[in-house]
Each structure stands twice: as structure tokens, then as C-alpha cells.
């Protein structure tokens, strides 16, 4: 029983790590190349999203009604990337004048959603549901 609790705690810890740093949840379990590859895709989507003129939504943003909160939740999935960007002011300005700004927003949101998926995958790997 204590062993199971310990394994679950480890899985939650790795999942949290994976959310904070994309791919780290996999790297921390020895799946180095898998972690690097999927982490790189999140970073790539983030960089491209910002370059295209996308911006992060705050969790408490109400500029587009309730949808803004949903967008903010999607963006939060990027973990430290999101928190650091909000803190440093990178990619937080709405650049609607750019024709690719909407694409940029989608790239940023999908980066966050994929990172949620990766964090859950790291959890599954740790508890032995996957290999």
C-alpha cells in the first residue's frame, strides 16, 4: 500500500514537472529522446505562435467573454513558458493587425493543450499503464 502511494506521488510529481517543463516528465523517467522530441514540438509551436503574432490570454481575461478564460486555460498548459512569458511580457500583446495573428493564437493554445497531454502521458508511463 505504501509502495503504491509512493508510486502515485512520484507519478503526480513527474506529471507536474512535465507540465512545467515540456518533455521533462518523460526525460525524468529515462525516455530521453521521446521527451526531447515532444518537448521540442511544444517549444516550436510556442516560438512559431509568437512569431506569427499570437498572444497569450490571461486566466482572468474577459476581452472575449467566457471564451477568453477557456483560451487562458489552454495557454496555461505551456507551464513555465506561459508563466515566464506573462511575467516578461513576451507574446502578451494582441496584434490583430497581422493577418497571421489568429493562427499564432491557435499555435499557442495548441502548444498548451499538447503539453497537458504530455503531462498525462508522463503520469501513465510512471504508473505502468503504458510503456
Amino acid at each position, binding site marked *: 500500500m505504501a509502495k503504491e502511494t509512493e508510486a502515485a506521488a512520484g507519478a503526480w510529481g513527474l506529471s507536474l514537472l512535465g507540465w512545467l517543463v515540456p518533455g521533462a516528465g518523460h526525460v525524468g523517467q529515462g525516455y530521453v529522446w*521521446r521527451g526531447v*522530441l*515532444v518537448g521540442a*514540438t*511544444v517549444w*516550436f*509551436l510556442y516560438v*512559431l505562435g509568437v512569431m*506569427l503574432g499570437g498572444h497569450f490570454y490571461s486566466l482572468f481575461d474577459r476581452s472575449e467573454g467566457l471564451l477568453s478564460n477557456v483560451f487562458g486555460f489552454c495557454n496555461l498548459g505551456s507551464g513555465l513558458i506561459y508563466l515566464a512569458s506573462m511575467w516578461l511580457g513576451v507574446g502578451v500583446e494582441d496584434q490583430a493587425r497581422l493577418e*497571421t495573428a489568429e*493562427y499564432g493564437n*491557435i*499555435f499557442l493554445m*495548441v502548444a498548451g493543450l*499538447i503539453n497537458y*497531454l*504530455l503531462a498525462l*502521458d508522463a503520469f501513465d508511463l510512471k504508473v505502468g499503464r*503504458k*510503456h
Partner: protein
Amino acid sequence: MKHFLLMVLFAAVVAIPFGVVGREGAQDKLRYGLKVFIEFLGVGLALAWLLYFIP
């Protein structure tokens, strides 16, 4: 053309983690990643044509 290339790039980049997470075994991962990539493109093009006829 720029929009289409962005769609292809998006489909390719998103298909990678889907392939990695969605299946087990290298060959199954690759096959599933390719399937997701093609599906993204197919649905994107189908929606584009559909929306073309909607004013």
C-alpha cells in the same frame, strides 16, 4: 499559399506528439502519426471548400 503552408506545418508538428503518445511500438507510432497528419490536412481542406460556398 502562406496559409496552406502554415496548415501543413501545423499538421506535421501536431502529428508528432499524437503519434508518440497515441500508440506503442515504433512502427505503430509512425503509422498513427502519419494518419493524424493526413487527417488534419484532409479535414482542413474539406472545411475550406465547405466554407468557400458559405457567404
